[in-house]
């Protein structure tokens, strides 16, 4: 018995098999980015958030908030939108402050405290960790806020894991940091 296979069918089958293999390899990676790529390390998350926080245009409060929202926890964004922005923006508007991203430099100085929140665990957060990192922030003179007392200043940032990512929770004073440090011992 002879089976006749047209040459064109062979090409179609080969191309189909190649596409199927490529799809099997690539599709999961298109749908879900590699785990390592999704997790921004906390020092980088702190720098990214802080730089975005001090980058402002007095004419675009909503844009500023929109940029910060994905970088902050729900609670942290509540702090920004409900308390910090109302205290900050009127003075930025009066001074017509514009601070460009390139005018803000943030350096991570290391970890000051870390721990796991029982409250976050109770909320169902699988990874309920928190970190407090020390930063040094420098804002160029041309972009300095009217409320700034120095061009370079330290900052303590509380990062909380939410949805698997490190996000802004609050800025803390040294006294506040000590409370966390004592509790995490």
């Amino acid at each position, binding site marked *: 018995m002879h089976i006749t296979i047209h040459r064109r069918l062979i090409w179609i089958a080969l191309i189909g098999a190649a596409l199927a293999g490529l799809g099997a390899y690539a599709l999961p990676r298109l749908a879900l980015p590699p785990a390592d790529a999704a997790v921004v390390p906390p020092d980088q998350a702190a720098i990214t958030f802080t730089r975005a926080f001090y980058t402002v245009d007095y004419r675009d409060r909503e844009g500023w908030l929109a940029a910060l929202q994905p970088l902050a926890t729900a*609670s942290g964004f509540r702090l920004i939108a409900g308390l910090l922005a109302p*205290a900050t923006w009127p003075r930025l508007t009066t001074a017509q402050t514009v601070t460009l991203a390139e005018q803000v430099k943030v350096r991570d100085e290391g970890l000051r405290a870390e721990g796991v929140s*029982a409250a976050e665990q109770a909320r169902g957060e699988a990874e309920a960790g*928190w970190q407090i990192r020390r930063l040094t922030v420098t804002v160029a003179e041309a972009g300095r806020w009217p409320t700034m*007392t120095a061009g370079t200043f330290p900052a303590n940032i509380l990062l*909380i894991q939410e949805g698997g990512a490190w996000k802004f929770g609050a800025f803390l004073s040294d006294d506040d940091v000590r409370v966390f440090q004592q509790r995490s011992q």
Partner: protein
Amino acid sequence: MRRLMLALMLVAAVLDGPALAQDDDGPIGAIGDGSLTGSLPETLPSYLVTGADGQIHFNADGLTPGEPIVLAAPPGFWQLDGTLPGTDIQACLGCLVYNTYTTATGETVVIPNTYTAIVMAATGYSPFNTPAELAIGNGALQLAAMAGAFDGLGIPPEDFTLENLIKRFDPTSNDFDPLFMLQLNIALNDPNNPLNSGAFFWAAGLFQFACHPVTGECAPVADRQPTGSGSGDDPLERICQALGDCPKPLTGVCPSRDFAISAPPPVYAAEKLLPAFPIVVGQDPAQRGVDVRAGVTVPPVTVSFNVEKEYPGERVCQWVGNGEGGGCTPGSFDSVAYKDGFQSWMASDPDWGSLDTTRQVCERVTRTFPDPVTGFSARLQLEAASIAWIETGDLQQRYPGAQVYQAVWPLWPGRPPIRQTIAADRTAISLEWERLPLRDPGQYRVVLAGRTAGTPYTAPRDLAYDKITFDVALLEAALIK
């Protein structure tokens, strides 16, 4: 003026559902279902109205908004500094915040925000220096939790009781979680929170004061009814009257009340007791440690003022008339109200008689009020310069890797004292700790903080002491050629 002192607890057990705060257009906030314990005033203040739903609603129409009162957290409570790094902008998260309004008749209406109301409810703490004319508390805390008001805070609604909250608020409790406190503060202070919409806060409370409860000032009101002596606008006069010390207005015997208030400053005790020359415990073969005493004494507040008093005067023989005098029998009077003195016919003339008189005297009265301590904390703090010396200074150069083991030593609360003396009226506290195992060399500050309850005439006072008190030495060996 209403002088009703009410404590109305709104029992919400039979509520069909929570009455969330509404927009300013409508009834601004329902504060309960009208199922009240205690007694209601005969007439509610104009800003409180009973709606068709049977609930009491707050309506700020006709009230003049005032500056919010922002007070430090009660002693022992964690207070998030909230200073925005690099700026002078502050957003105090643990502070107690009260919105204020002034009524047309000059009373101050004070409404705590939700976090503040919970702290007050959980601890019984009140920063006010005068009793409220009207106090309405909402017992719907747990109901609020059941309705999801505190979702996301990691506490099951059924656990949202005052007892549980107190444990969580106490920094010395195992249940204290700074992250929880932070998020609770943010949630309950957020003006965009549905709890805080409108001018009234559900699950909060309301107080009305004759005068501003912190400044003591009474709002100037043009159409205030005169109060007899014309001194009704004087807050001191009103307090004096409320206390029953000034029952009658002055009639001129005393030119004025001339209030004089003396509130001597608190006297702090902060000292190292033993040993005479402490060394770090790690270098002490006996590992002796350091004994420390800390405390405060708040002298009483004294208030002096003038009052007019009436005393029995002379018995005077005088004209009475209408045959009602009965005559002036010799020996029954002290003096005679007649230009020529006693006349014999006065003894039998029924129009004359002996009457008791009174005399008005202006007296200076002094009242003493204890100003009890409502909260007190004490800690040792390694001086910043000493920390720098250890971590980055000379010591670090000589001993690379030297580190600070414990810069802050919470003593009260945090470490049971070996001796404690607390006066019955809580105006004096003395605490002693023995053998504190201080591991870090340097200068130590004794930091005391707290607050007094205030008196009817004076506002609560902050207690604050922060001074370098003693040194702990590090022994260093050196080779001498």
